[in-house]
């Protein structure tokens, strides 16, 4: 029985650690006992945000520990055609690289993977791709793919860590510029580094009902006492967060927040803006 309890506790701790790995933390905050006291924040969610996930924690934060920036997220690309292969590795966040394969006319396979990324990072990566089929004199020949049209950057794609994405790119003879000699693919890693500036080791208490928070965007509003995380679903843009006490108590607290897309992966969460501190 004791072992089961220990295992449950360990799982809970592991799960909590995993969750906090991609949520931003407000750091230690204090609400005063002033009548009507309300702390007022704005959280800007960008990208393909579907909803804001918000969790309120009552109680003193023991310490705020500065942690290093999120470890590198990277992806690798492999271009193959029959027995020919070219590999380019380590396309880091915010960078781009080109990969070339001299394979003539025909179908090329572009494979993308995330090998080398820190496995504790759960945020999916975003990227785009651009390609050109070129003749021996570097003139554009005929090229096509379901991914995007030749020479045009594709729409933003996502790749979850540990997954592989594959695309076919066809190169053919062009009436003016002749046969294809090589395929050049440009890979642009558009993943936003998750800037978790501080992680708060908290002696979070069970919610007493003395602290409440409201998350509002447009015509949608939700309330929480911190029992569990709430999701407010109203797309990208600014979410208002109010923190107050129905009993006018002075209370320490902190909160975690994350802008998530429809797949529940981080979209683009910017650090909050403080509008009122009471």
């Amino acid at each position, binding site marked *: 029985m004791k072992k089961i309890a220990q295992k449950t506790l360990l799982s809970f701790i592991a799960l909590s650690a995993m969750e906090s790995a991609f949520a931003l933390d407000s750091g230690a905050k204090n609400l005063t006992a002033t009548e*009507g006291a309300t702390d*007022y924040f704005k959280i800007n969610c960008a990208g393909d945000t579907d909803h804001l996930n918000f969790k309120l924690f009552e109680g003193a934060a023991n310490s705020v520990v500065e942690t290093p920036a999120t470890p590198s997220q990277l992806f690798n690309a492999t271009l193959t055609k029959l027995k020919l292969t070219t590999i380019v590795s380590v396309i880091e966040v915010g960078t781009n690289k080109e990969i070339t394969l001299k394979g003539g006319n025909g179908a090329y396979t572009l494979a993308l993977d995330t090998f080398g990324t820190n496995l504790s990072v759960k945020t999916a990566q975003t990227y785009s791709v651009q390609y050109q089929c070129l003749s021996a004199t570097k003139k554009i020949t005929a090229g096509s793919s379901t991914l995007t049209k030749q020479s045009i950057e594709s729409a933003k794609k996502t790749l979850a860590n540990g997954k592989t994405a594959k695309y076919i790119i066809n190169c053919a003879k062009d009436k003016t510029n002749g046969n294809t000699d090589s395929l050049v693919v440009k890979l642009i890693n558009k993943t936003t580094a998750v800037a978790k500036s501080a992680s708060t080791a908290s002696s979070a208490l069970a919610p007493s*009902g*003395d602290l*409440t928070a409201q998350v509002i965007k447009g015509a949608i*509003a939700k*309330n929480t*006492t911190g029992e569990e995380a709430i999701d407010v679903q109203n797309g990208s843009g600014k979410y208002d967060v*109010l923190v*107050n006490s129905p009993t006018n108590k002075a209370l320490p607290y902190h909160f975690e927040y994350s802008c998530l897309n429809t797949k529940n992966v981080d979209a683009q969460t910017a650090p909050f803006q403080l509008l009122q501190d009471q």
Partner: protein
Amino acid sequence: MKRFIFLMLMGLSLNVFAHDDGGILGENADAVDYFMVSCSADSDRMYFNISTSTTKPLLSAQVVKGTFATNIPTSRGGVEISQGGGSYRITVNKNGFGKVGYSFEYHCENGGEHTETDITRLQ
């Protein structure tokens, strides 16, 4: 009798200026009722007072305008919020599980005069 008629008339006359609304918050602790009160441009503040006959869970309202926000638990009584004309957002919620019925009074004002007041229920 005259006094009774006078009080009746007083009541009727006060009702001309009264703006009241209310609702019932559902069981869930995350329930929020959400209103928008529009005060005409000549207003200098909004008066707000919320009440309930329920003692538990505790009921509160928040009034937000621009970068200003205040919390109004039922224990606070009537509050004058001097944030001028425009839209005041009002959220009503509670600190735990359980249905709560409530009513509130609101007026846009300028000095001692009532100004044009409209309300829209958003949620």
